[in-house]
C-alpha cells in the first residue's frame, strides 16, 4: 500500500469517527440538560410548590400553584381556539383547496409559523391587551393560539394528503358525498397523525414564554380569565433572574416540571404515531 493510500484510509477513519463524535455530543447535550435540570429541580421541589400561591418579593416560601393553574388556563384557551381553527383550515388545504387560494393560505401559514414568538406577543398586545385595558389569561391564550393555528393546519394537511387516493375513491364510488367521505374515511384514516401533530403543537406552546410576558403578565393570585395570570414559563424567567436563592430554587423546580411535561407529551405523541401504521407515507 502506498503512503498516499494509507493517508487516505487514515483520513477516512478519522473524519468518520469525528462525525460520530458530533452525533454523540448532540445527544449527550440532551442528557446533560435533563440530568442537570432534574438534579437541581428534584432538590428544590416540595409539596408547597404545588399547593401554595407564590409570594411577593421579600417573603420566603410559597409555591407555584397559581402559575400551574394559570398555565393550564392559558393553554386550554389557546387549545380551544387554535386546534379547531387549525384543523378546519388543514381540512380545507388538503381536501377543498384550489390552486391559487390554497397556495396563498399555505404560504401565509408558513409565514405565520416563522414569525418570532415575541412578535406574536406584540400583535396580541395590540389586539387584545390594549382594548381590554390590561393583561389577561385571554390575551395570553390568544397569543399562543396564533402560534398553534399554523402548526395544526400544516400537520393536519400533511397527514390527510398522505391518505391514499383509492380510499377516497372507494367511498365516493359507494355514493358518499365528499364531506361524508372526509368525515368517515379520510379523517379516521389519518387521525393518529393529526393527533400527533396536535399534541406536538400543544407541547410547543406550553413552553412558550416570550408571547406571554406582556399578554398574560404575572400575578401572585389565582384570578379570573380577564385578569393578569401567572404561568410557569414566565415565572421561571422572573424567578431565575431574581437575586433571591429561594426564588432560584423555585425556578429550578418549575423548570423541571415544565420540561418533564413537555418531553412526556412529545414522547406520547411519537408513540401514538409509531403504533398505528394506518397512514402510509
Amino acid at each position, binding site marked *: 500500500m502506498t503512503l498516499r493510500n494509507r493517508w487516505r484510509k487514515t483520513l477516512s477513519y478519522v473524519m468518520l469517527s469525528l462525525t460520530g463524535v458530533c452525533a454523540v455530543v448532540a445527544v449527550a447535550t440532551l442528557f446533560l440538560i435533563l440530568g442537570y435540570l432534574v438534579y437541581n429541580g428534584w432538590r428544590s421541589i416540595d409539596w408547597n410548590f404545588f399547593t401554595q400561591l407564590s409570594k411577593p418579593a421579600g417573603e420566603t416560601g410559597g409555591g407555584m400553584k397559581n402559575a400551574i393553574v394559570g398555565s393550564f388556563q392559558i393553554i386550554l384557551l389557546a387549545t380551544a381556539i387554535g386546534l379547531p*381553527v387549525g384543523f378546519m383550515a388543514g381540512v*380545507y388545504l388538503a381536501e377543498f383547496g384550489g390552486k391559487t387560494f390554497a397556495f396563498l393560505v399555505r404560504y401565509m401559514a408558513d409565514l405565520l409559523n416563522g414569525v*418570532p414568538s415575541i*412578535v406574536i406577543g406584540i*400583535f396580541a398586545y395590540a389586539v387584545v391587551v390594549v382594548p381590554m385595558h390590561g393583561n389577561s389569561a385571554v390575551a395570553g391564550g390568544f397569543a399562543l393560539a396564533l402560534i398553534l393555528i399554523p402548526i395544526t393546519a400544516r400537520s393536519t394537511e400533511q397527514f390527510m394528503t398522505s391518505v391514499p387516493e383509492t380510499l377516497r375513491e372507494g367511498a365516493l364510488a359507494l355514493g358518499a358525498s365528499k364531506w361524508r367521505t372526509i368525515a368517515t374515511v379520510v379523517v379516521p384514516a389519518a387521525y393518529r397523525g393529526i393527533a400527533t401533530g396536535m399534541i406536538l403543537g400543544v407541547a*410547543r406552546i406550553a413552553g412558550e414564554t416570550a408571547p406571554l410576558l406582556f399578554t398574560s403578565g404575572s400575578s401572585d393570585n389565582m384570578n379570573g380569565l380577564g385578569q393578569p395570570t401567572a404561568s410557569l414559563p414566565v415565572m421561571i424567567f422572573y424567578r431565575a433572574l431574581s437575586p433571591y436563592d429561594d426564588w432560584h430554587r423555585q425556578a429550578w423546580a418549575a423548570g423541571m416540571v415544565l420540561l418533564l411535561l413537555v418531553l412526556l407529551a*412529545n414522547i406520547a405523541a411519537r408513540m401514538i404515531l409509531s403504533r398505528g401504521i394506518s397512514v402510509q407515507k
Partner: protein
Amino acid sequence: MATSVRMSAPPPTGARALLLRLRNGDEVARLITLAFACIILLVTVGLIYQLWSTSALPRHKFGFGFLTSSQWNPVTGEFGAVPFIYGTVVTSLIALLIAVPLGVGAAIFLAELAPPRISSTFTFFIELLAAVPSVIYGLLAFFALVPLMRDYVEPFLRKTMGFLPVFSGTIFGLGYLTAGVILAIMTLPFIISISREALLEVPTEQREAALALGATRWESTWQAVVPYARLGIFGSVFLGLARALGETMAVTMVIGNDPKVHESMFALGYSIAAIIANEFSEATTDLHVQSLVLLGLVLFLLTIVINALARLLIIATARRGSS
C-alpha cells in the same frame, strides 16, 4: 327531426346550481373550512398591518436613520436599531459557526454510517432536544453556562487568542459569546434533522459510483454525497439561522442587556428580541413603544426573508432528489 329530441335537461345554472350543491352538503363543508382557512390569511395580514401602523411615529421621525443610529435613550427620546441588529446578527453567526460543523457532522453520521437502530434512536433524542422550551435553555445557560464561560472558556480564549480584538476585554460570563453558544445548542437539532433528511434523499448510485472508482468511504461521502445534498444542508442552516434570530428568552437571560455595539465577544450586548422582552411592558412614551414595535417589524422582515430562502432551498433538493 333529430334536432327536436332532447337528450336531457340542461344543467341548472346560477343560484339554482348553488342551491343544489348546498343541499348535498359538500358546498357547505367547503365554505365552512374555507372560512377557517381565511382566518389564517386574516391573522397574518392583520399582523403585518398592525406592526406597520403602530410603528408610524418612529418611522416618520427617524426614517432610515433608525437603522443607522446606535443611540438608544428612552429619556431623551433617541432611538436607533444598530446595537440590537448587531447583537442579533453577531450572536446568530456565532451560533452557526458552532452548530453548522457539529450539526452537519452528526447528520453525516446518522445518515451514512450509523446502523438504522442507532440512527433512529439518536434522531428521536435529537428531536426531543428541539422540543425543550427556550426558557429552560435560558435557565440552564444562566446558572450553568455563564459560570463555565466566565471561569474557563473565556479566560482560555483570551490567553490563547487575546491578540484578536474579538477575544479581548473584560470577562463577565454574560455577553455575546455565551448567548451565541446557547443559540448554537438550540439550533443544532434543526440543522441535524433537516440535513439528515437531505442526505437520505441522495440516491445510492451516487455512493456506489464513487466507491467503485476507488474512493474511500469518507471521500465518497464528502465528495459525492454531501455536494449532492448541499441545497438541503444550506436550507437547514438558514432555518437554524431564522430560529436563532428570533430567539428571545435564552438570549435575554444571558446577553447582558447593554444597548451598545462592542467589538469584543466577551462584552455585554443586546438583541432585538431581548430589548422587546425587557422594555415593551415598561415603556411609557408612545415613541418608545412604537420604536420597539418597529424593531419587531425589522426582526419580522429579517426572519421571513431567511425562512423563505430556507424553504426554497429545501424544496429545490426535494425536487431534485425525486427526479
